[in-house]
């Protein structure tokens, strides 16, 4: 008679060499001779760089002070010992108002601060999926906020003093340019993408020419175009603001990139969806807004957010047509004789880099989260 086992054998624990910290180290750090060499090299790099960075940014750094003397060595005319290197956060500290608002009048700075608070109050519930009333929220954020901000920031009505746009600067310009750019370029990009896939040959040709021409040239050329050529295009006497011109160039540029991202999404929707919509008797716009675009846009969220991140980074280029965003203000202040020291440029730039990094990294992480949340298993 054969013997049949009636209960399952208990699972044995993994051998000691395959679990615990030692196994992890062996697998991940010293798996082979080459690996060990790389690990030693990596540790050497980290040990060489990290103490220097920490020393520079925190331990030796100067956090506050009246002028350049706190950030320079005795030989350079300051109070620090010879051979000292450290971050000059005092510079950032002293210029903080400028870095945020440019030369916006100090007694009027509550206005951009109020806009910032409104922005955060409207944005946060928009980003948390559980909060209800997304439709109302979106209308307030993308239509209400720009209108209110326009009157608040520009002024000239309701007893608010007028503030010309050349006085705007710093983070205010960076964020307002990129926010309006995002709000304009997404719908415009969707329309261009639909136009490029249209069956009407002339509409299609116009969209293709626009998208390819804009994508083929650098943003600086577009900004040059906007600042030098737009005035030539208008009748004599009609001029408009430099900020607005930059905004137009910027939005058109971003729209061309957005159009290509959206087109990718449109192409990924199976033909059956289009035909299904047709067979239900939906018109073109119904078909697109109810069936195709919701699916297509969901597919390309990473691409759209990447374009947003690109736009936020590209706002720094307005410096070239002498407008001062966050980076521009930092750069402008290198020339301040009160703060000229070998450490000032590095400190200012690293602060600006940190702000940009926080914004962009936050956006990319949020897009990953949304992607996971909306993933309905449709993607291949």
């Amino acid at each position, binding site marked *: 008679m054969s013997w049949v086992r009636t209960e399952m054998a208990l699972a044995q624990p993994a051998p000691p060499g395959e679990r615990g910290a030692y196994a992890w180290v062996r*697998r*991940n*750090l010293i*798996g082979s001779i080459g*690996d060990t060499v*790389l*690990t030693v090299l*990596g*540790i050497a*790099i*980290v040990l060489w760089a990290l103490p220097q960075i920490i020393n520079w940014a925190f331990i030796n750094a100067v956090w506050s002070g009246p002028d350049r003397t706190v950030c320079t060595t005795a030989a350079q005319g300051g109070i620090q010992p010879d051979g000292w290197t450290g971050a000059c956060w005092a510079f950032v500290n002293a210029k903080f108002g400028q870095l945020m608002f440019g030369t916006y009048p100090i007694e009027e700075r509550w206005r951009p601060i109020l806009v910032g608070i409104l922005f955060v109050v409207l944005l946060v519930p928009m980003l948390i999926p559980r909060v209800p009333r997304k439709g109302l929220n979106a209308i307030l954020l993308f239509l209400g906020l720009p209108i209110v901000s326009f009157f608040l920031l520009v002024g000239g009505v309701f007893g608010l003093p007028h503030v010309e746009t050349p006085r705007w600067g710093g983070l205010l310009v960076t964020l307002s340019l990129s926010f309006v750019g995002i709000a304009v370029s997404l719908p415009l990009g969707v329309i261009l993408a639909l136009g490029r896939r249209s*069956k*009407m*040959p*002339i*509409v299609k040709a*116009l969209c293709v020419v626009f998208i390819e*021409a804009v994508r*083929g*040239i*650098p*943003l*600086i*050329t577009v900004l*040059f*175009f906007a600042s*030098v*050529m737009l*005035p*030539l*295009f*208008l*009748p*004599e006497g009609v001029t408009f603001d430099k900020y607005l011109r930059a905004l137009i160039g910027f939005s058109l540029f971003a729209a061309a990139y957005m159009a290509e991202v959206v087109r990718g999404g449109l192409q990924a929707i199976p033909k059956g969806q289009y035909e299904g919509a047709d067979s239900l008797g939906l018109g073109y716009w119904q078909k697109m807004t109810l069936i195709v675009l919701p699916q297509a846009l969901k597919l390309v969220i990473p691409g759209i957010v990447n374009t947003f*991140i690109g736009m936020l*980074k*590209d*706002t*720094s*280029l307005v*410096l*070239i047509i002498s407008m001062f965003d966050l*980076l521009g203000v930092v*750069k402008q202040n*290198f020339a301040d004789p009160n703060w000229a020291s*070998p450490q000032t*440029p*590095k400190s200012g*730039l*690293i602060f*600006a*880099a940190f702000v*940009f*990094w926080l914004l*962009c*990294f936050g956006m*990319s992480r949020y897009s990953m989260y949304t992607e996971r949340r909306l993933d309905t298993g449709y993607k291949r």
Partner: protein
Amino acid sequence: MASQEILRGEPSRGSFINDPRTRSLFFQTLVVILVFASIWWIVDNVIENLRRLHIASGFDFLKSRAGFDISDTPIAYTSDASYGRALVVGLLNTIIVAAAGIVLATIVGFIVGIGRLSQNWLIRKICTVYVETFRNIPPLLVIFFWYSGVLAVLPPPRESIHLPFGSFLNQRGFYFPRAIWGDGSWLIGVALLLAIAMAWFVARRARQRQKATGQQFPVFWTSAALIVGLPVLAYLLSGMPLTFDFPKQSTFNLTGGFWIKPEFLSLLLALSFYTAAFIAEIVRAGIRGVSKGQTEAASALGLRSGPVLRLVVIPQAMRIVIPPLTSQYLNLTKNSSLAIAIGYPDLTATAGTVLNQTGQAVEGVFIMMIAYLVLSLVTSAVMNVVNARMALVER
């Protein structure tokens, strides 16, 4: 039986205004009219504005004297040369920095991208930190960082940092020995060309032989020996015509040698380090895009890990990598226009100067756009050829 009559008869057209063809015709006519009206309006305004500003349109200004100096000139240029030549100098500078940047970015990007997939936890983390840092800050900031933050605070020429091979680094840039080609050095070039041709021939024969007999031939080592050996032999035979002009420290500056200015250096480093972060992500996605079954099947066939990578994984990964890589190359070329921010005379910077001096805004912007479009098209064309060679050959 009304429905059957409809089925049998001519297909119902519906009313005239609901016909898609009529609508399409109507909308397109409308669009054409709108576009032409706005173009006509714009052209009319431009002509009127130019007339008012007394600016003659046309490209005649290209022949007149430029009158401004350019700091980096790959071809002979003085301020007496024409505007046209100034623009050519700018274009050449753009091409130089873009080409060097593409090479450097590809090398760094591939290393970091492969590093992100390494078995080694530490290397993986270091590469991740690199990518996440550079991807999320503006390229202009990186350029400023190298220019004002790093290169501008190097020691003055008198206290130059000595580097290997007789090169120096200081505030004013990077100096390294310049090669001077003496008489008969053409022989070295000829030898190099000959070696490359021979290596190609050897590779072809080896492939044919392997197909016919299955025997392998050490192609790599043979080619390496040919390509290094023949020029060295030619160098020795022609009486060692190659000498070096080493930079020398004098009282205030360095003389001799080859001098790379800090503008070029910071632009090149910033562009390539920034773009490398994106290339690394593309390479990582490409390698991860090759399904695990491919690697396992190759191992099951008895290939070692080297040939698995070389013959199975990389050719398939390249198919995924090349299209986005092309767009990164185009981005790098376009980003090289940021040179204007630190005063490296690339196309945008020189065209901007020309535009300011002559007031020929329309022509200046037009030249810039055409030049960048052509550069982009050429890069795309080259990469399309590469892509076509790599693409899957289907029945």
